[in-house]
């Protein structure tokens, strides 16, 4: 059990409400005591140390914080951690083990689908949901699916190619 704000420097500590949440994160049950106002993205990063989920804009625009929530991509900066209690969350760390690459990760490597890499985890999670639902997407379908994820290096061409690469590889498996 991890606690995000265990050090509260005053008597005010008694007034801070905390709730226990248990979330299935990357296939494993994780629990934490959290303030109700804590965002899911922050619990994942600071509580569970899963720093692959990035927080970019904090305003539901950029999609860097995208995780799969019960299999669907959501922006984890716009959900409270307590809302994920009892639900299934998959972060980029859940795609493959530490010494292997998921086909999507491989695709991003092969097709140079990243420059600075900040948007990449979100791009990959949205792509995962897309390929789960539609294993052979067209280029247009990929662009449509990824339209909620922003890449400020503007490397969209290669991101689309990376997803196509992953689709082909997954299709052959």
């Amino acid at each position, binding site marked *: 059990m991890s606690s995000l704000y265990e050090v509260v420097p005053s008597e005010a500590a008694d007034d801070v409400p905390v709730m226990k949440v248990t979330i299935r994160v990357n296939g494993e049950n994780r629990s934490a005591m959290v303030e109700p106002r804590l965002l899911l993205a922050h619990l994942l990063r600071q509580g569970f140390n899963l720093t692959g989920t990035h927080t970019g804009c904090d305003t539901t625009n950029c999609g860097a914080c*995208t995780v799969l929530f019960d299999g669907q991509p959501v922006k984890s900066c716009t959900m409270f951690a307590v809302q994920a209690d009892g639900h299934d969350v998959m972060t980029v760390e859940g795609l493959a083990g530490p010494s292997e690459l998921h086909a999507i990760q491989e695709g991003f490597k092969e097709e140079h689908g990243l420059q600075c890499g900040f948007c990449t985890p979100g791009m990959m999670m949205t792509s995962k949901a897309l390929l789960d639902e539609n294993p052979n997407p067209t280029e247009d379908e990929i662009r*449509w699916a990824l339209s*909620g994820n922003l890449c400020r290096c503007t490397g969209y061409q290669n991101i689309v190619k990376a997803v196509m690469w992953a689709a082909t590889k997954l299709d052959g498996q």
Partner: protein
Amino acid sequence: MIKLRFAAPEMLVDINDLPGLDHLQREDDGTLHIGALCRHGALERSALLATHQPTMAAAAPLVADPIVRNRGTLVGSLCHADPQGDWASVMASLGGLVLAQGPKGRRTIPVKEFVRGPFQNTLATDEIAVEAIVPAPQGVPAGGYLKLERRVGDFATAGVAVSIDRSGGKVTRAGIALTGVGGSTIAADEAAQLLVGGPLTAEVIGEAAELAAQAAQPRTDHRGSASYKRQVVRVFTSRILTRLLATEVEAA
């Protein structure tokens, strides 16, 4: 709203895990019921809307971005009462209603009266919105929604919702509402009224588009000048109606 410090509620109640609120149903007479937890994504993929409610079907894929559509809801959008909200215009054009439930029971509130101003609705403090209702069409429903945005997920520069019902070659009911060109959603009732009672013609369409443009109260900002936004309203109104005129000819 909380992040922007526009609201600082003492308590929030999450309704996401409540059962029985995610429905999208059509009654035999054509009345539609959209539950408070029916997501934008479900509306976007709905065969029911694709077949029976063209204005909603046109708007659903344009709401926010695909990821946001997995969580956001139509009823939530109405309650949020953002003048930039797509659904408020769509529902206003359809003569839609909000079904509110509180300790004293249920009541329906027309969408046009539901929004009091930016981010303000007429729900009582002990009420929640449980459903949105689209009344039965008076004929065959037709319509469309067009939105100009700088990129996916951005606020609309301007948006126009048009819904008409047709029977026997005549327009029996019409609604036109505007997104993002005023302090709240604007119902262009004069423009809509002009369409009712006769067939769609190029001349009527031109006049209605002009009235819709006049009903807009746009402001010049980084998305465009007021006159540009007014022109977008004019063009979008005309474009949707002209398309409906073409489908009418095809159908005949």
